[in-house]
């Protein structure tokens, strides 16, 4: 046997040893953790398992899209938290993407004034921790005047320390969520059909509004008007949509912060579009808007979408800071459940599982979007 063969065999043996060691160590850690957990839980008199999900909670929380009651079982309460996380997450994703594209385009503008305004915005909101912005904003919001002295815009929109009151369609919250989902599905359908950007936006907006009006007309309660406007009655507002102060704070804070990040992603993408292409557009007599929507954005999207997907996942994860102001997102519900029921391991597993599911789904959606947006010639 040659020396080289011996060396190779030795190396192979070492690799097998290292891997076996790693597996052994992992198994040891897991087994150790499980046995310790069992003894610790027994000492505290806790039964492990998911049986607690059927017990009723007995505590209340701030916000829910569906009817809630303090006697709800843990399973339903956790589900409400999960819905809230998805709700805030998707609203934040929608708004940050919208504003991010606007601000990012402004960062790329040739006009100095617009460019510097966008730069000031990005540099302020990107460089302060999100949680500080949220707590700051919440402190300002809860110190607003009460409903009787609410700030109003044309007596239809009111802002007070109870929240933002908007005029809205006379439908139940469940129907409203259904409408949001339908609008989202329409958007996905339009992307799937590869509708051009501006026409797609027009079709999407028009379709969504039409859908809302038809549903509201069909589903409104007997005798109610199509649109209900908030009005002060005694000490509180009636009618319209009330966005509670916690939800309002969450949406505004995440949107302000996230838009600054997405603006940078968009700016980076736009900067990578070769200058010759814009000049070619100018030579053809296209307007600035046409150059933006037909040349720059389609080219830039290829490099924008992967980091944009990361930002969407970040936004979803960022909803966990709701706990700082008492917004009942999944993390908040889980942490209260842990103190109330003591089922730490099960609840943490549910929490982690929910985030793996949502973020996995978002990653799949981003990949699909990326594949859709690829230029055909490439």
């Amino acid at each position, binding site marked *: 046997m040659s020396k080289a063969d011996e060396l190779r065999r030795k190396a192979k043996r070492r690799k097998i040893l290292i891997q076996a060691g790693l597996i052994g160590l992992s198994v040891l850690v897991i087994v150790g953790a499980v046995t310790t957990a069992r003894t610790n839980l027994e000492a505290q008199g806790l039964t492990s398992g998911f049986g607690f999900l059927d017990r009723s909670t007995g505590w209340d929380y701030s916000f829910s899209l569906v009817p809630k009651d303090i006697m709800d079982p843990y399973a339903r309460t956790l589900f409400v938290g999960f819905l809230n996380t998805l709700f805030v997450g998707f609203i934040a994703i929608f708004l940050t993407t919208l504003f991010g594209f606007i601000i990012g385009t402004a960062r790329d503008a040739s006009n100095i004034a617009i460019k510097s305004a966008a730069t000031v915005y990005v540099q302020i909101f990107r460089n302060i921790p999100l949680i500080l912005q949220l707590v700051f904003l919440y402190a300002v919001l809860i110190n607003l005047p009460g409903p009787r002295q609410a700030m109003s815009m044309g007596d239809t929109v009111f802002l007070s320390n109870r929240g933002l009151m908007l005029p809205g369609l006379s439908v139940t919250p469940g129907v409203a969520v259904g409408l949001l989902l339908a609008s989202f599905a329409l958007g996905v359908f339009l992307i799937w059909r590869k509708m051009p950007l501006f026409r797609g936006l027009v079709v999407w907006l028009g379709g969504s509004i039409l859908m809302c009006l038809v549903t509201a007309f069909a589903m409104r309660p007997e005798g109610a008007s199509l649109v209900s406007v908030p009005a002060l009655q005694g000490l509180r507002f009636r009618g319209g949509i009330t966005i509670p102060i916690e939800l309002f704070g969450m949406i505004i804070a995440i949107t302000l912060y996230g838009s600054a990040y997405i603006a940078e992603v968009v700016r980076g993408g736009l900067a990578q579009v070769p200058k010759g292409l814009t000049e070619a557009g100018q030579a053809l007599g296209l307007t600035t808007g046409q150059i933006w929507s037909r040349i720059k954005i389609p080219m830039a999207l290829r490099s924008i979408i992967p980091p944009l997907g990361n930002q969407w996942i970040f936004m979803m994860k960022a909803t*966990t800071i709701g706990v700082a102001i008492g917004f009942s997102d999944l993390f908040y519900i889980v942490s209260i459940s842990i103190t109330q029921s003591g089922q730490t391991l099960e609840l943490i597993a549910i929490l982690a599982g929910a*985030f*793996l599911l949502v973020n996995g789904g978002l990653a799949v959606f981003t990949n699909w979007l990326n594949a859709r947006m690829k230029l055909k010639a490439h």
Partner: protein
Amino acid sequence: MTDLSVTSPSRFRAISETLKKRAFSSPTDSVLTILVFCVLAWLAWALFDWAVLRAIWSAENVDQCGKGTGAGACWAVIDARHRLILFGLYPFDQHWRSTLAAVAIIATVVISCVPLMWTAKRIVTLWVVGFAAYYLLMEGSLLGLQQVTTDGWGGLSLTLFLFSSVVLLGMPMGLGLALMRRSEMPFVRGFSVILIDFVRSLPLLVTLFTAAVVIPIILPSWLEGDKIWRVIIAFALFFACYQAEVFRGGFQAIPKGQFEAGQALGLTYWQTLGRIVLPQVFRHALPSTINMVVITFKETALVIIIGFFDIMASAKAAFGTGEWAPYYLEVYVFVALIYWLFIFSLGQYGEYLKGRMAISER
């Protein structure tokens, strides 16, 4: 391009050329420029008026701030409570130690930005020395000073402590994970891939919360350690998983021939890595690494949720009780300004480096 059209290139001409092109190229453009600048100027003036002109800088007591009488910012609250915000519950007569410790960490970060320090030996020495200086000063017992345990640490000093320990621990962990991910051994690679993807898809808050409440259940009590160290290790794991991806990007930029050249010279794996590959990887990964460090500094603000008395919590305490309660705005502006200064300057430095490296690669 513009320079060619300017016959006598004076600075004034150049500026007016640019302005003509980029601010007043058409009537609508001009209106837009003036409108936007007016709004910006008005905002800046309103802020300046509130924060400087009508502000009250010091007051014997709260009444002099006179909330509701048209006075501006009441900076007297910072004057009265800055020690609480900066040092938390640290013993009052020992605040000089907390100051020195914070200065040690800031100096460490600043010195790391000097290219002269960018060798593995120097940078590691610098961070270990800076961190040790911080710990010795804050803890005190080894220097013969009054002992202050970690429960007593707070405010800005605690934020800096969390930040520096996370970066110090997380950096080698990140490198380790990146190397494991490149390994030829399937189980080693799989282990690293699963760990990285798992941690990256969980919110940081969940990771920290798990460290705070789950570890005591699944570890025997002799392994449990202080809550602060559990949280730091979990935070460092989070940092490492992201940093591993940054290093992976750096590794991908190195041609395979570099490894083969090392092998052909008879160098071992570790020699090739340490002398040839890693120096280049670090160079490539530098801008993204700075970005990661900036994000980490921002994310340390989350620890308030799991019950640490960091600068956010001490800010809340500063206006939370009694007399200064109406002046929450001033306290939050002060803390936001501290964060902003750190994060903005680090971020600008990162941008500068990126630009410099782009030039040297051309």
